[in-house]
């Protein structure tokens, strides 16, 4: 038995010390190079002016020592700042949130985490959810022993219970083996800054494109940011040498030992591998935290020592084939067994519960809490309109529990074929009162691609859908998702 689940392994400490020394070395080298350049520059100038002799001791040991001391201090400062609250910072960068216990999917996820905790002998693990339709999962740990497993909303919607359990088992295996601490540290040293800078850079490009006059300072800022960004990215790339791709194989094996279900993990990896994993949304510099790299990289799918050294994830094919042989089956049987979820009609799936006192903006009768694709919304029992919070809506659009009736499909098809409307059609009008704050709601199109008129309250961030409107938007979003995934 390779691991005892009670003791969290402290073996990774040497690797963490190695990372620290690596940071010191990076600082030292860059400082030394900078120093020599400045010195060379001034000496060259002095030489031209005074025509003195070239100094014999170009590198003085005393100077090297001072440079080392300064760079050590700088590296220690960088380290200390990066390590502080690293878990919270990464969670914030990934926009991960604690599960909403009013949501059926989130409740099931919380239960699965608790199950895996029991399988690990009573560990404490905190669950988090990223509100993204990407399919991915990650794990974080810190020096105080806090452990986090995060999962994307897309994964919750697409995988069945045993597949989710296998994925959570894989992440728990990283936590037990201590890989996660190493990865969290390595990501917060450079990766996090590079991820933050990417956001700034995106914002600046956006504002630069929208503004009519392009000023020189903006371009200068962009150049500086770009320089720092590429440096951070390069350092992060070098730092990934410390993360072995063997860790992923080991976590797969350990996950199978925990959940005793290699087939479910193989199915999950197969589904994740064929879907969008969050490239563009999840920064690539944080990729090593995830079960599969968010971005498809050729390096990941290669073998040999270069890939071994610089890649953080082993080839998906190799991982799959190991798991498939563990389950005594083959890839074709696996493909056949992956079936889409059974769908039910929306009327069948929404059951009305109690009221919390809000009134329907149309009929002024009480709204009732209801579960819609697992999420909690409010529904009017007389006009069948729905009041949905904006963050809850994002989840509903990712999920695919309901089937669409013929009429919904027809309306959706018609709207999808519509060309852009004349400009005055997009103007916002004010019709209904918000059930929460009683102020006027904005009546506008959901967005320019989904031409469905909704009522939106920007201060309460709730949306009112008349009957069938939400279903039409769901139809459209699913249609676009299908088209994107096919390409």
């Amino acid at each position, binding site marked *: 038995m390779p691991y005892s689940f009670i003791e969290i392994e402290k073996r990774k400490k040497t690797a963490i010390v190695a990372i620290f020394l690596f940071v010191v070395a990076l600082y030292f080298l860059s400082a030394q190079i900078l120093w020599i350049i400045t010195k060379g520059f001034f000496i060259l100038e002095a030489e031209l002016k005074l025509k003195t002799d070239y100094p014999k001791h170009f590198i003085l040991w005393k100077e090297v020592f001072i440079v080392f001391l300064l760079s050590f201090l700088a590296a220690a400062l960088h380290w200390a700042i990066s390590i502080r609250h690293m878990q919270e910072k990464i969670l914030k960068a990934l926009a991960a949130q604690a599960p909403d216990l009013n949501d*059926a999917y989130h409740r*099931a996820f919380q239960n699965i985490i608790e199950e895996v905790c029991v*399988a690990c002998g009573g560990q404490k693990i905190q669950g988090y959810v990223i509100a993204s339709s990407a399919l991915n999962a990650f794990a974080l740990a810190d020096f105080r022993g806090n452990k986090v497993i995060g999962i994307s909303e897309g994964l919750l919607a697409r995988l069945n219970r045993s597949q989710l359990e296998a994925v959570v088992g894989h992440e728990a295996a990283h936590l037990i083996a201590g890989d996660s601490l190493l990865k969290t540290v390595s990501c917060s040293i450079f990766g996090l800054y590079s991820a933050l800078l990417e956001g700034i850079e995106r914002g600046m490009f956006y504002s630069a494109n929208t503004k009519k006059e392009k000023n020189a300072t903006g371009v200068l800022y962009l150049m500086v940011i770009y320089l720092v960004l590429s440096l951070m990215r390069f350092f992060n790339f070098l730092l990934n040498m410390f993360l072995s791709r063997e860790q992923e194989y080991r976590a797969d094996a350990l996950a199978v030992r925990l959940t005793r279900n290699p087939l479910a993990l193989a199915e999950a990896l197969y589904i994740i591998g064929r879907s969008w994993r969050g490239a563009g949304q999840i920064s690539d510099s944080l990729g090593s935290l995830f079960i599969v790299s968010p971005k498809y990289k050729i390096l990941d799918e290669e073998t040999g020592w270069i890939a071994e050294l610089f890649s953080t994830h082993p080839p998906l094919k190799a991982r799959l084939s190991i798991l498939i042989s563990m389950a005594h089956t083959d890839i074709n049987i696996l493909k056949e067994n992956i079936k889409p979820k059974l769908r039910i009609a929306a009327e069948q799936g929404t059951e009305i519960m109690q009221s919390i006192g809000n009134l329907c903006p149309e009929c002024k009768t009480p709204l009732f809490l209801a579960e819609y694709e697992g999420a909690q919304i409010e529904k009017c029992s007389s006009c069948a309109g729905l009041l949905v919070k904006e963050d809850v809506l994002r989840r509903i659009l990712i999920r695919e529990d309901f089937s669409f009736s013929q009429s919904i499909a027809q309306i959706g098809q018609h709207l999808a074929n519509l060309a852009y409307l004349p400009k005055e059609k997009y103007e916002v009008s004010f019709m209904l009162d918000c059930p929460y704050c009683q102020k006027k709601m904005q009546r506008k199109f959901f967005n320019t691609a989904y031409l469905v008129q909704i009522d939106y309250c920007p201060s309460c961030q709730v949306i009112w859908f008349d009957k069938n409107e939400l279903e039409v938007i769901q139809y459209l979003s699913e249609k676009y998702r299908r088209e994107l995934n096919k390409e």
Partner: protein
Amino acid sequence: MIIVWIILAGVVILLLALAGIYNNLVQLKNRVRNAWAQIDVQLKRRYDLIPNLVEVAKGYLKHEREVLENVTHARNLGLAAKGPQEAANADNFLTQTLKSLFAVVENYPDLKANQNMLKLQEELTTTENKISFARQYYNDETMRYNTAIQSFPTNIIAALFNFRGEELFQIQQDSERQTPKVNF
């Protein structure tokens, strides 16, 4: 003189080794106890859920009294069980009665779609999975402990200080072995 020192050193080393092995055994035994406590917690949680389940189902299943009574009976057996073997058997019996209950529920679409029933079903599923994981963990730890007790030279010390092997949490029926976890 040197010989005395060598003998003394030998005795000290032997004593240290003895203490090491003894401490290791105590640790292993405590882990088994802790693992058992975890199973106990989950079993109790499951027994706590049963009355709610019966309460929700009662209104719908007026003509299926027998099934509900069986579930309640199985719960009472489980609450009275002592030791791993008895607990395993009672738990197994409860699993079977629950299975027949859910088979009956399939015939009542109203009950199946009931919000409370769905929540209870999720709760029962997760508790059942937790029990099976806790059982797996308990068996792993017990196996480790039993192996330590039976292998040389630990077995001498185990016999000396009266460490006894622990029972595994096993399931009797062969049919049960093939369905380890509940999935939807």
